[in-house]
């Protein structure tokens, strides 16, 4: 392949038919988020199959199906997308650690619709541990990624082991993010996870969460355009006022830029290394701050009501960005 083709191939401006069909299925699936209030089952979208090697499913690495699905689900409802997709990174971390028995058990439960594992990240500093856990209800097990100075260990624990050490942060909403601080939960004394395998799991997780966020950005941007076209001031839609138009344009640019970088990084083999994970997390964070801040501003007070799309995303995106950043910073 010549240099130019190689560069074009690594950009993915046009979707392959397979990518397009994945996207369409995920979009249809996400539309039901709003209708019946259910998040759906992983098997409906073949999510459980994505826990393993996607090339065995007939995908090229450059087709990034998990990212495409996450983006569409994120555009439907970021919180539900996170709930539905969360077992994937938990399983990726188990696979990276070579814990095949735990992997098989968790995957079976998830595939059977019995709930997938949650994910917890523990980082020890000066004898104290900071822990954050994310789980879809009802998570019976949690994959703990224990980041220590000498390396990273991964374990699979009953969710009850974490209860009592942690307190809810966004637990009042459907996003079950909890934070804890106290004695470290040391459960393993075996080998640390291989550095490359760990980087790969982190990289894929960063891509997956970033995709949810990019989808949410797109949804919020479109909602802001809708609102700006309907809402009138001084006798014309507010989208016709230059100050609002500029704000709307900036959200669209930020959104588009983040999506292009996400697709670029997801499509290349090196996209799961540490540097790319950090590159992506930084851009998605910067873009999401612009999009959710400016979209909410377009809605003004209507966007500040807690249940509004803009307000919900403003809050959830902040947590997601912090998670993405924390995962990108994991270094074995």
């Amino acid at each position, binding site marked *: 392949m010549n240099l*130019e083709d190689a*560069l074009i191939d690594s950009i993915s401006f046009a979707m392959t038919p397979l990518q397009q069909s994945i996207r369409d299925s995920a979009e249809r699936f996400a539309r039901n988020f709003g209708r019946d209030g259910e998040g759906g089952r992983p098997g409906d979208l073949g999510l459980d199959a994505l826990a393993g090697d996607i090339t065995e499913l007939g995908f090229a690495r450059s087709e990034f199906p998990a990212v495409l699905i996450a983006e569409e689900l994120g555009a439907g409802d970021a919180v539900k997308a996170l709930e539905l997709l969360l077992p994937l990174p938990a399983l990726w971390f188990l696979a990276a650690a070579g814990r095949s028995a735990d992997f098989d058990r968790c995957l079976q439960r998830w595939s059977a619709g019995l709930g997938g594992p949650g994910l917890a990240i523990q980082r020890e500093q000066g004898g104290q541990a900071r822990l954050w856990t994310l789980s879809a209800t009802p998570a019976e097990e949690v994959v703990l990624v224990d980041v220590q100075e000498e390396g990273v260990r991964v374990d699979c624990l009953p969710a009850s082991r974490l209860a009592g050490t942690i307190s809810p942060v966004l637990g009042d909403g459907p996003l079950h993010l909890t934070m804890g601080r106290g004695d470290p939960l040391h459960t393993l004394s075996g080998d640390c996870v291989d550095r490359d395998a760990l980087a790969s799991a982190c990289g894929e997780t960063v891509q997956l969460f970033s995709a949810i966020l990019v989808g949410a950005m797109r949804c919020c941007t479109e909602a802001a355009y809708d609102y700006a076209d309907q809402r009138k001031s001084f006798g014309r839609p507010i989208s016709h006022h*230059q100050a609002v138009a*500029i704000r709307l*344009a900036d959200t669209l640019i930020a959104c588009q*830029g983040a999506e292009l970088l996400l697709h*670029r990084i997801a499509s290349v083999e090196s996209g799961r290394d540490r540097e790319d994970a950090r590159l992506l997390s930084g851009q998605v964070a910067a873009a999401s701050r612009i999009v959710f801040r400016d979209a909410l501003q377009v809605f003004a007070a209507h966007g500040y009501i807690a249940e509004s799309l803009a307000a919900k995303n403003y809050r959830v995106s902040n947590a997601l960005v912090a998670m993405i950043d924390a995962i990108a910073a994991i270094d074995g």
Partner: protein
Amino acid sequence: MTKLDEKRVFELAHQRAVECGIDFKTLTQAIDGATLATDRTGEIPDSFWTQFDVRPLNLNWVPDAYSSRPTVHSALGRAAMVEELGYADPGYAISMPGPGLSMPPLAALGNPEQQSLHFGRFDSDIPRWGAFAITEPSVGSDATAIHTSARKTTGGYVLNGQKCFITNGARADYVIVFANIARDRGRFGIRAFLVERGTAGFSVDRVEDMLGLRGSMLTALSFEDCRVPEENLLWGAHVGRHLDAFAAAQGAWDFMRPMLSCIIVGFCRRTRDLIAQYIAGGGPDGRPDWGQARVERYLADMDREIMTARLLAWQAAWKYEQGEAMSRDASMAKAYASRLAQQLVEKAMDVLGMAAFEPSSRLEKAWRDAKAFDILEGTGDMQRQMIASLHRRERTSRQIQLRAA
């Protein structure tokens, strides 16, 4: 690691240049050596163009059918080349010989004889330029409101009016001038005329003393009873019902904005490298000692933004090549890249402080150059207004399609 892919972009630029017969290495080195002098004088001396074969530069953007040499066929090849030129110096990048912004309207509105005649002049060993004149002293972004008039007379038209901020206007062999034949018809009253240098009534009033990008010779032009022969009107049955002169002007911006964005990406990369060079020498002579982790983080932040700017520009260029509607993408690329350029030079000034003013430093010049990006080819504010409006239009047509389906 994805990062900036500088090596592959550099290799691609060089490969494409070699295929066209452009001695890219000599060209970029010559630019590097001349840039500070041009910044002082505002001129690119004639001797500059004697250092290499200018014919392939002249022909670079000429459509294949009218070029005696191979040209860069692909959008990505062009993008890589202009990015490298932007790295060398953005002012020079937009001052390269060739039809420049006049190419798309001549290609879209000119009949085969006009195209053959006027593109044919670029097949020359002397540097030749074409220019594009739509902006007027009292009309900027709202280009449909131009005042320059074209009155029909026997055998041609008489042009009256003024144009300003015309890139390469003083060195151009011809200027494509947009003028009104009937003001009451709005954009549909606009026509494009090819005005040769030296035509009676056409004068270059002045080359603006610009803050930056000083090699680009931004020029004020005036037309006083300037007689243009009938055959220099770019119009006729060949144009087709779907096109008008103003749409052809928009086509020129669609072509140029992604290219300009790539030039800005090259400029951003250069600024980033200047900062990196400076902080790498940390410690002595009052430079900050940042520590490895902070330096890496700082540079990575710039890299991701530059990478994003490049992707936006490439996407717009790629869509142009595919014949897809891409005005919104072109504006997004330009708006993002020009704001980024400004942010990077501000970062650079924060880091370097007084060191930016050393005679050999390019940063003080970069500081001035960067401001131009958010102004030329449509201001940042105007780009954003267009982005919002084009996106709304696209949403409406999508909704209509959905309803019909």
